[in-house]
């Protein structure tokens, strides 16, 4: 009854699309008739490869997952499996009746009733009219649209549309079910029903071709996973390994993007800082010029040039400065950039902030449990002995995940004479999946901010499991008494 052999065999499958260039506008019938032959007019000006050299087999009864970034070739592969497109090169053999849930409700006519559309859709998907008439009550019940089934489809909500489409597609009773990201629509209850149906198909030994961006679902449902990137097989096999590879690639890509963004952000902030500093110094000089000469001398100590060559009496001068620091501070308006992301009097400035992984490489995407090092570069305007370095980790909605500083962690400041770097390592980043913002700060022990930089770095954490929450500790379960469990 059911055919034997693999359900789907792809051998060196390639598919390219015609890319119509500028000449397309002129490649019309007029020009074809007046000049070139028809075949020339139809020839593509350029070709884009959507799939190249993809080989795999899907055994009967297998649930086969396909993952990959947008434009990776997933949809093209599905259309080849469904027989909608023909391969440019290579071979694809599909053994059995395919029902594709590529776009549910494709072919519904808005003007006619849901019931009539079910009949038409069913016939389009390969049922005879008798079969569809017989299954009609079941389909309508499954869709849960009994009350609306005789209304024209144009009055349906998009969710209702999809439910009806799904109901028809699963009742076609295919040998191979092609599912493309359909569970993203419809409400929670219907999504569960869809998943149950898919699981039921699997139990009945049907082959399922499952495409989704929900990696958790893919991991849960699939026996094997194909990871496509730029039309090529990046990985194929065990779901855990393949998905791990995909996650790593995504994290690496995210990391590159975040690093670029981070660099841009810092450049902008450093530029504003230089501008502010300049106008601040000019402002102070202007203000001091009108008052006593002694004060002028003191202000000059602030200029970075003198700090380059610390003289023996520099420290004495510094002491004098310390004593008069307070009144000067009051004159200084808190320095803030346009986004109010940075403030402080800049007695010490943060000149850079980077995140490093365990190997010391700069990175902004981490796996949960990895080590993370925050490195901040600082530069004092003048030598000082009162400084505290701090970090704070926040979620994008401003929940503090962690905050600490050198004071809390038991370090006493001794001297900061010039450009310096402070690093703090968090050996295990036990955070849940998400984006986090890092604040870095230098302030006095009495918490007068020198430079407080809100969201200096943004980083991404990806965790493999489905556990909830910000905190992702290691877990160890133990059971005793009349209970038995087994590992999945």
């Amino acid at each position: 009854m059911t055919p034997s052999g693999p359900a789907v065999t792809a051998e060196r499958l390639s598919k390219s699309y015609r890319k119509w260039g500028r000449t397309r506008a002129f490649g019309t019938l007029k020009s074809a008739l007046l000049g070139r032959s028809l075949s020339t007019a139809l020839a593509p000006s350029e070709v884009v490869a959507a799939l190249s050299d993809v080989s795999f087999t899907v055994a009967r009864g297998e649930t086969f997952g396909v993952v990959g970034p947008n434009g990776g070739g997933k949809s093209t592969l599905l259309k080849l499996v469904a027989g909608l497109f023909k391969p440019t090169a290579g071979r694809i053999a599909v053994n059995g009746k395919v029902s594709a849930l590529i776009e549910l409700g494709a072919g519904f006519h808005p003007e006619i009733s849901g019931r009539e559309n079910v009949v038409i859709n069913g016939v389009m998907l390969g049922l005879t009219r008798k079969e569809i008439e017989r299954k009609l009550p079941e389909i309508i019940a499954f869709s849960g649209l009994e009350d609306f089934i005789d209304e024209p489809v144009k009055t349906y909500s998009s969710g209702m549309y999809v439910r009806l489409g799904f109901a028809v597609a699963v009742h076609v009773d295919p040998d191979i079910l092609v599912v493309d990201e359909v569970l993203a629509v419809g409400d929670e209850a219907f999504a569960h029903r869809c998943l149950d149906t898919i699981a039921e198909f699997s139990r009945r030994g049907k082959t399922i071709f499952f495409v989704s961006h929900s990696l958790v679902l893919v991991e849960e449902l699939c026996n094997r996973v194909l990871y496509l990137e730029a039309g090529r097989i990046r990985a194929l096999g065990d779901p855990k390994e393949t998905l791990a590879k995909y996650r790593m690639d995504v994290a690496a890509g995210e990391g590159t993007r975040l690093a670029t963004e981070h660099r841009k952000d810092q450049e902008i902030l450093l530029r504003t800082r230089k501008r502010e500093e300049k106008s601040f110094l000019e402002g102070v000089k202007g203000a001091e010029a009108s008052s006593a000469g002694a004060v002028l001398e003191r202000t000059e100590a602030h200029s970075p040039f003198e700090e380059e060559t610390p003289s023996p009496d520099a420290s004495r001068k510094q002491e004098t400065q310390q004593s008069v620091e307070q009144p000067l501070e009051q004159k200084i308006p808190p320095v803030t950039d346009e986004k109010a992301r940075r403030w402080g009097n800049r007695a010490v400035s943060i000149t850079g902030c980077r995140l490093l992984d365990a190997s010391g490489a700069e990175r902004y995407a981490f796996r949960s449990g990895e080590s993370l090092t925050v490195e901040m570069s600082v530069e004092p305007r003048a030598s000082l002995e009162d400084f505290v370095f701090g970090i704070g980790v926040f979620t994008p909605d401003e929940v503090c995940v962690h905050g600490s500083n050198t004071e809390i962690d038991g370090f006493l400041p001794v001297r900061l004479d010039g450009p310096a770097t402070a690093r703090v390592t968090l050996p295990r980043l036990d955070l849940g999946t998400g984006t986090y913002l890092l604040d870095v700060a230098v302030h006095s022990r009495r918490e007068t901010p020198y430079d407080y930089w809100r969201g200096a770095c943004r980083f991404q954490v990806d965790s493999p499991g489905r556990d909830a929450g910000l905190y992702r500790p290691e877990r160890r379960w133990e059971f005793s008494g009349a209970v038995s469990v087994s590992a999945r």
Partner: protein
Amino acid sequence: MLKNLAGLWRHRALAYVLVARELKARYRGSVLGYFWSLLNPLLMLAVYAIVFAVIFTGRGPATSPYAIFLFSGLLPWTFLSSSLTDAAASLTTHGALLRKILFPAEVLPLVAVLAQGVHFVFALPVLLAGLVLGALGVFGPSIPLGWPLVQVVPLFVLEGVFVAGAGLLLAALTVHFRDVKDLLATALSLWFFATPVLYTLSDIKQERVRALLRLNPAAPFFDGWHDALFYARWIEPPRWGLLAAIAVVSFLLGYAFFDRLRDSYPEAV
């Protein structure tokens, strides 16, 4: 190609539901519904009857009463031109379907022709009523009425096959050249005047022009319609042979062309 043709027969159920859908959707929401299929030709007949009784008078006795003569050619022409217009647009308007569901694409232009065929069949009672009134002398000199009317059936089938072939060709072309749709409107009006719908070929006095017009593959069909409906004459077997040949050649050529470009539709629509 032959295998695909055989496959087409298996999809007749699909063609059936799509034609039904086309008709249902067209009249959904209108008060008179299917009556429009009847009413439209009736109104058309009324307009032409008035125009040719009051404004354009004084035509030869061979085509008198002219309103009935015109009507017997105009309905089959409407079938031809509407079918071609719909068929040409069929693949591009149902592009979403072609990209998502696997079914033989030729169903779409054929459904367009079939749906127009149904409209034609609905209009036949009006045509018959017109002929009866014509026979009673309501529009002027009375016309003969008789058994040659049954020739309407094979004429309709053969014209349908002829139109289907042309429709397949146009549908395939439209996918790659959207210009066809625009060009088609003009081409159809030129073709209308080059076809003996408003006149008979014997009206044409210049021998050369007549010879040229005889090359028009649609001409024998309209000679046939006039004979069957207006003159109540039997069409001779050789003419039937010619009609059948034109229909089959048109269909095979159109289908072959359509079949050759088949794989390009899901991507190009």
